[in-house]
């Protein structure tokens, strides 16, 4: 095998992976989204039907029509994007100082601190979200403590609202913000900060003019890693958000499991992909402008 062929073979592997596990499922979802919901197994009409005039393609825009006409979906998308965007900002505000602190910590303590960031992953995500119910409940740990200390006289309503969803998302996705930021900040040459100080920058000015712009790729990577899964998040709003929290992930779940409307669920999923591709493209363009 020639070197060029070997190179192509190596490159073919990730492509093969993407085609098998991303493109093919995507096309299947696309196919289901243009079918009609029927009672049966599978619960949707076939793409190609044999009729009296021979084979013909069966395409239906019903699901997309409903998606566009029913405000519920638009609202759910907007809510999900808002939840995800605000949570991403909070993750950044918490994660940046955390990552910065770890980078600045003495070498021997750094791996321990990183381990602490990753430690929650050793427990099931679901269990950790349930644990928050115990913390945020009307008679949960936080309320009990505040009552006992006499700071409040009535339990705060911390659960089954937007606040709880934010707490859940920020808590769950914080490591995805910290790790890429850490990787980026760790690469920063300390001599650059000395150079900035030498040229007249106070520490916070050096941060604004050197550290922050040079950590943009890490911020972008962390923001995408938080934002994308947060938009489609189902478990957190379902468990912590209560019945009034409307997020697209929950709508999708309901269409699929409660209504058994596979075409509608598929259409919701396809639309969500489109909703996510736009911010990703924007961030990519922003970064390319930065490094050009």
């Amino acid at each position, binding site marked *: 095998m020639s070197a060029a062929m070997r190179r192509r073979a190596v490159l073919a592997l990730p492509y093969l992976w993407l085609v098998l596990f991303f493109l093919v499922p995507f096309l299947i979802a696309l196919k289901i989204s243009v079918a009609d919901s029927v009672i049966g197994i599978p619960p949707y009409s076939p793409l190609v039907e044999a009729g009296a005039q021979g084979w013909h393609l069966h395409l239906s825009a019903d699901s997309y029509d409903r998606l566009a006409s029913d405000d519920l979906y638009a609202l759910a998308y907007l809510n999900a994007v808002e939840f995800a965007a605000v949570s991403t900002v909070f993750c950044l505000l918490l994660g940046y100082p955390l990552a910065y602190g770890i980078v600045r910590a003495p070498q021997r303590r750094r791996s321990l601190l990183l381990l602490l960031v990753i430690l929650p992953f050793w427990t099931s995500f679901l269990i950790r979200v349930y644990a928050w119910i115990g913390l945020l409940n009307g008679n949960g740990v936080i309320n009990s403590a505040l009552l006992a200390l006499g700071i409040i006289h009535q339990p705060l309503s911390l659960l089954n609202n937007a606040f709880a969803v934010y707490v859940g998302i920020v808590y769950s996705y914080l490591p995805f913000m910290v790790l890429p930021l850490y990787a980026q900040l760790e690469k920063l040459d300390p*001599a650059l900060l000395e*150079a900035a100080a*030498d*040229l*007249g*920058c*106070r520490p916070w000015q050096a941060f604004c003019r050197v550290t922050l*712009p*040079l950590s943009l790729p890490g911020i972008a990577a962390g923001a995408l890693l938080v934002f994308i899964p947060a938009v489609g998040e189902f478990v957190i709003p379902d468990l912590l958000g209560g019945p009034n929290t409307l997020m697209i992930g929950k709508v999708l779940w309901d269409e699929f499991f409660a209504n058994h409307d596979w075409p509608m669920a598929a259409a919701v999923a396809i639309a969500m992909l489109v909703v996510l591709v736009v911010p990703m493209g924007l961030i990519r363009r922003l970064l390319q402008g930065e490094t050009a």
Partner: protein
Amino acid sequence: MIAPAATRPAPQASYLRIEGVAKRFAPGVPAAVDGVSLDIAAGEFFALLGPSGCGKTTLLRMLAGFETPDEGRILIDGVDMAGVPPYRRPVNMMFQSYALFPHMTAAANVGFGLKQDGVPAAEREARVAAMLDLVKLARLAGRKPHQLSGGERQRVALARALAQEPKLVLLDEPLAALDRKLREETRFELVRIQQRVGITFLMVTHDQEEAMSMASRIAVMAQGRIVQLGTPQEIYETPANRFVADFIGGVNLFEGRVLRAQGGLLEVECAEAGTTLFVEHGALPAGSAVAVAVRPEKLVLAPPAGAVNRLQGRVRGAAYRGEASTYEVELAGGKLLRVTLVNAARRAPPYGAGEAVALAFAPAAAVVLAP
């Protein structure tokens, strides 16, 4: 070499004054800088020369404000720098790694400090253009550091260090990252620029040739102390001790004992040389243990008969270096000497391995070092 040290005015008023500065990084370890005092005049090109770990970089970082001295004072133009943070010192540094901001163009790097100082945009642009012109990089102003060669990056770093017109420019191994040919060209360039801007330069280097060819004065450092201070010529021709003699250029050392002093000559009994050596030197008491140091280029091969300090040996090997050849000569007692001979004529090296040779040096060509 570039600016003969002897023709330069001797330093007058002290511009940078270092008084008994010491720095210890941890208790129990030897001090990195151990009581250094120096006076550097305005407009001087000064070099701190020494092997790695001698404390020269620590001293430089204390001048920039990145390290705080444990003892002593640093005064720049009469102002005590104690407690003055790096961003308020009238000092700019050219970092060994250059430390250029990778997200900024060459022009933005050079203008970084001016922008921080709040210099208006028009004035800033003019100044950046002038600086880039000075280092001959005007046409690359819009490039980012990763689009520049090593030599170009070095010049951006220099322009950046000069842009704010500091009172003192610190250069940390300014040429170390360049390849040999570029390094030699850049020496001249750096001296030319320093003379044009007239700013005081303080360079740190481990390369004696670099220090000697660029600086007007040199402080040789070892183990946190200054072991000799002088012009390049003083340091090369009259090293103060064995360390300096050995560190600056090659040297042949003969261990011996003073027999007597007579008429400005010292007679040294030397078993290694197999003869008594005569060296121009002030009187020393008879019996003092001394070393006679002779530079390889000051030894003469095949001297006329009857020459003083005449030695007999055999050529062990020769290294042809183009402009000169270095011979290794073994004396009868086994002592190895290095002799450098300029290859003045286009022919094969005149001496081959195994050949018996006579060599000698003039009494004025050697230096007596106390042990």
